[in-house]
């Protein structure tokens, strides 16, 4: 017999948002896709760019998680179950209103990805506020009945727009759409490519020059390296960029990379512990002497930034899409 109360409340909150509003933050449909409003992307096409929740709500999620962390530490005390659930209400904050406070740079990886795809001559559309959620979080929460139902709705919606191929950029969405949907949807026929794979196909024809010289370390996200199996792809891209001195950690690289502490909704259940793990991972990466940490996951970016802030480090975190966009030669 199942017992839904066993889902930790932080995770239950995010899952409810997905079920009721089809996005992790529970924002209204109109509030979505703001990052792309000046880009004039068309909504149609066989191939669409799938952006997911992570990048476009990066600012809001960061704010929410730092509040949850503080509450986890102090306000509500560690002896109680604390997560994101009920927290915005408790603190008198409406998560939707946070949209206005979101940091300007949070969606830059998406704009840069669009720039790179454009430069490569890739034809693609973007569903904008009509883009459905990958609903992967429901799967990881253990709500597989909800996942099955919502995944089907997502698939139907994509099909209703005539979508045949997806270029997906969030690793977790990519894995969900490519792998987790398969056993749940009969006759699943969407081709799902990750953004990195598209770049790699075009790498021989690309001239990449980083503005200046920099020592760069790469942080493998769990979903990228251990779920999608993309270990060499991002490394090949970074090695192809002139001006980048690529450095690696001794043990914790590739399939041995240490999780940033944000895996599987963990930061919503254990905000403070998640932060401790982020700091630990950052320490490992700083041992390389890197000036820039590159990764390719909105969750990892948020975690690594918070870890660096804690350590008062001046090292920057950039998304791989940003680094490639910066390195495109005119």
């Amino acid at each position: 017999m199942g017992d839904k109360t066993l889902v930790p409340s932080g995770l239950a909150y995010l899952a409810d948002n997905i079920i009721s509003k089809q996005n992790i933050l529970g924002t209204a449909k109109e509030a979505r896709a703001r990052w792309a409003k000046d880009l004039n992307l068309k909504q149609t096409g066989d191939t669409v760019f799938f952006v997911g929740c992570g990048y476009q709500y990066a600012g809001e999620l960061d704010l929410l998680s730092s509040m949850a962390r503080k509450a986890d530490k102090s306000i509500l005390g560690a002896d109680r179950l604390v997560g994101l659930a009920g927290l915005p209400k408790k603190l008198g904050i409406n998560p939707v209103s946070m949209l206005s406070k979101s940091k300007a740079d949070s969606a830059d990886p998406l704009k840069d990805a669009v720039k790179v795809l454009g430069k490569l001559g890739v034809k693609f559309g973007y569903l904008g506020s009509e883009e459905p959620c990958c609903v992967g979080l429901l799967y990881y929460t253990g709500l597989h009945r909800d996942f099955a139902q919502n995944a089907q709705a997502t698939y139907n919606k994509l099909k209703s727009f005539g979508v045949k191929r997806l270029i997906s950029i969030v690793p977790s969405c990519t894995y969900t759409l490519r792998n987790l949907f398969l056993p749940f949807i009969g006759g699943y026929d969407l081709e799902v490519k990750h953004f990195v794979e598209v770049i790699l196909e075009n790498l021989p024809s690309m001239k990449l020059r980083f503005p200046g010289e920099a020592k760069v370390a790469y942080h493998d996200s769990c979903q990228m390296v251990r779920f999608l199996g993309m270990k060499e792809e991002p490394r090949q891209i970074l090695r192809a960029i002139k001006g980048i001195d690529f450095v690696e950690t001794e043990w914790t690289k590739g399939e041995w990379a240490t999780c940033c502490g944000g895996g599987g909704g963990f930061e919503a259940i254990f905000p403070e512990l998640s932060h401790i793990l982020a700091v630990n991972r950052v320490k490992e990466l700083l041992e390389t002497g890197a000036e820039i940490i590159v990764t390719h996951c909105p969750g990892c970016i948020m975690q690594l930034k918070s870890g660096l802030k804690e350590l008062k480090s001046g090292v920057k975190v950039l998304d791989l899409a940003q680094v490639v966009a910066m390195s495109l030669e005119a």
Partner: protein
Amino acid sequence: MVFGEYKKELMDAAHNERIRLALSRAIKSYRSNTNTALKKFPHTIKLAEEVLEIKAKAIAEMEKLVQQVSQAIEENKGKAYIARTAKDALEIIDGLVGTGKLIVKGKSMTGEEIGLREHLEEKGNEVYETDLGEFIIQKLHSRPMHILSPSIHVPKEDVAKLFSEITGKELPPDDISKLVATARELLRDKFFKADIGISGANVVAAETGTLFMIENEGNIRLATGAPPVHIALIGMEKLVPTLSDAFKVAEVTWRYANYTVPSYVSLVSGPSKTGDIEKVTTYGAHGPKELHVIFLDAGRTELAKHPVLRQALYCLRCGGCLYECPVFAVTAGYFGDKLFGGLGAVWAAMVTKDRQKAAAMAYTCLTCGRCKVRCPMKIDVPTMCVELRRLLVEGA
């Protein structure tokens, strides 16, 4: 409010600098030692694949193997028992031990699972843990925090303090050999005075009824060799068909437990005997006169039927996964119950049947998957934890 209490313990551990210090030292040396061991014996990787096949097959026929091994042990003049529950196992042991006995014990996670030491003490027996780490844990009134290195969370400074208190002599933390010698001194006579020695086993060959016990300290050799009675408590998942299978399992186990080769592997198939006087077989020579082997089911048969979670039974208990778990690195066994990490969550749900604890642990798994990369049996802990969440939240 199981989750709240669990989370508080977990966070207290995460803020404990001593746990983190001890763990970071342990992780570093584990990785380096394992790397060396695998480089020196590169065939281990292929052997692990073979062992996975052996285990998968053995788990599917666990009931057949437990009947076979029981017969083999009886033929060897030992006694075999099948305990379907933890309670059954404790009752069998009570019947053999009684009260007022001096007992020396080797480390056993199966013993831990059924609360064996505490139970024997409650029944009025004097029990000595003889594994150094477990001895430290017993004296600290703590609980094991790693399957192979139970006192992994205790730095040398704390061990020195503890042993100084016990002996009344000031022991410096930097002289680890002095600390080890102190434990030897404290336990030496107990092995020879003990009425009973208790152990587990790492793997058991069903066809011959042979128990394999892997160790470095020599405490298991003494605890199972010196007293007149040897009792072994073993989870049914430790059974494999043949001696040659068992050797393979043993080698992969110790290699991934970071050893090129352990100092000792004891093979026990029956009580000690001699035929040196007129070829009359007489039991009870220099080793124990009695061997009692208890095989514990306690949910394992049910677990073996589950298509996803059954792989928890493939675990060799090498402990490698724990050194790769980012949560374990800061909380040690507080991310655990009877067993630790994501595997511990499955154990809590299916073996010790504590749903609240199981859920709390299943949601503590990052599902990052680095443990799977390390695991010689390629146990997919993230998939198991997600399936366990589903099972707990949605039901079968």
